[in-house]
């Protein structure tokens, strides 16, 4: 990783590798639906060769997207420091946010049905600014709960008035 997104003193903690599997599963399901629809449409208009081409091209596309999704999911990382939390992610579009504990107004843990299948959850932080999109997906469920409790406690302890 380059200097711009280097860890701030404390080393980066990675999220669970199960996030990769979860994201890939969702991608495959969507791919099946989309390709199925296109193939079905082209068979309906009696274009067998077109259907075949669609399958080939979209398989290549799927392989590429799977790799991209994997890299992107593995890029999520966070670092807990004394006064703030750093979260970084992204391969193509990279971003990093530093949220002071004192500015955290709520902390949510969310877990959709597919997340629950993989035993992961997403921690979401809110400050008074809507632009602070501080999200950590793919945390193992117990780690997500621990982080939420810790952040809530620190948020109250260090709360700075608006």
């Amino acid at each position, binding site marked *: 990783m*380059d*200097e*711009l*997104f*280097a860890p*701030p003193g404390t080393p980066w903690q990675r999220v669970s590798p199960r996030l990769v599997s979860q994201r890939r599963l969702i991608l495959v399901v969507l791919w099946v639906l989309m390709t199925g629809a296109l193939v079905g449409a082209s068979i309906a208009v009696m274009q067998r060769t077109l259907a075949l081409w669609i399958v080939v091209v979209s398989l290549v596309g799927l392989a590429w997207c799977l790799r991209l999704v994997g890299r992107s999911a593995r890029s999520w990382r966070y670092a807990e420091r004394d*006064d*703030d939390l750093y979260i970084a992610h992204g391969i*193509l*579009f*990279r*971003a*990093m*946010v*530093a*949220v*002071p504990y*004192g*500015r955290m*107004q*709520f902390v949510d843990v969310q877990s959709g049905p597919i997340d629950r299948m993989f035993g992961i959850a997403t921690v979401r932080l*809110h*400050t*008074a*600014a*809507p*632009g*602070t999109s*501080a999200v950590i997906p793919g945390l193992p469920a117990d780690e997500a709960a621990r982080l939420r409790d810790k952040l809530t406690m620190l948020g109250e302890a260090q709360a*700075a*008035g*608006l």
Partner: protein
Amino acid sequence: MKAPTEENFRRLSPLTPVARSGIVLIAVVGATWREIMSGEPGIVALILVGVLAAGAVYGFASWVRTKYWIEGDELRIDTGVVMRQSRRIRIDRLQGIDIVQPFLARLLGLAELKMDVASGNTDGSLAFMPVAEANDLKELLLARRDAVAAPAVETDPETGEPAPTAPPRPVVPDVLLHKLDLRTLLVSLVLSFEFFSLISASAAFVAVASLGGPAGALTGFVPVVLGLALVGFRKLSGFYRFTVSDTAAGLQVRRGLFELTSQTIALHRVQGVVITEPLLWRGQGWARLDVSVAGAQVGDSGSEVVSTTVVPVAPLGEVLRMSRHVLRQLDPAVVPISGIPDRAMWVEPLGQHFAFAGLDDHLVISRSGLFARRTHVVPHRRVQSVRVRQGPLMRRLRLADVHVDSPPGPVHVRMRLRDEQDARRLFERAVVLGRQARTSAR
């Protein structure tokens, strides 16, 4: 004015229902006048008059039920015809009291008393009462509030006589900070985008009409012209006699031609300021100052942030002076700002001219905009979070953006297209300075 008590409670003015719903009254009367005068009221007229009568009865009942008095250290307001409601406002928690006169109320000589309470959502308002009474009540409440804050008289333990007390706190008069004169306001309205659009639309209208264009095209111009004229007129009536004063409760902004409004800004709740220099005003050297203020409701559900124009139009020097006052003596003009590197022109071709940013120990600043140059200023102690972003093109050019997040409002500091290494340093520095500012402000 004698303080109202439970036995001597006071009522609001009986003209209150008229002032509140005057427009409706006029509309209904206007709609049914002909029918009533001709002596043959139709069904619609009867229904409207019936509704009006019901409204009048409800208004009267509501007036009878509304009472206010001072109970102990609270102002108690009882209202409600069907659902009784008793609201209590703690006098010692009053942050500010504003007297507001909406248009119709002003014609009737009435005013509304708006009370701003610190840390709570029991903001109260008493509408409407005669102006003189409103002023007296305001004096009374503020005197009570200040009396509660003053120490009680103590007795000297040896002699048993009242000990000499400190002299009473002097009443600090309001200081006028800024006034907008009519000439500047009018010239600024002329030098605005809306006015130029109005002129061009009118010119086009005249051209089409004189060339014998179809009548339909002509009627299409009318709403455009009216709309633009309305915008200009609203600005004129909104900023007429605009003054900013320093009061004990904060900065008070009073303005209005038809509707006199006043807003009080508590300086410790200011989140940031924006100084806007529109292109059309550059010739005169004028600018505008908007301030982002967090509302009185501090709670878990976030805050309401209000954007207030503290200086609608004034020379840049005056705007900077007022911004220093709003930021409690922090000076945006001394913050060192830098432009963007040459290679950034691949992303933002004209960026050298308008993209600047920088920070010092107290403030973060970013400036952008080719036509309307906007300078966003946020003090470190008001920063919510700091972000750095980099897209693929920017990565090739070794550039990054650093954003400083504030509560929703007109202020957003975006330090764009910084060199990569500078970006990381700015990011870290903003984080450190934010922490220091938060802990020292306590």
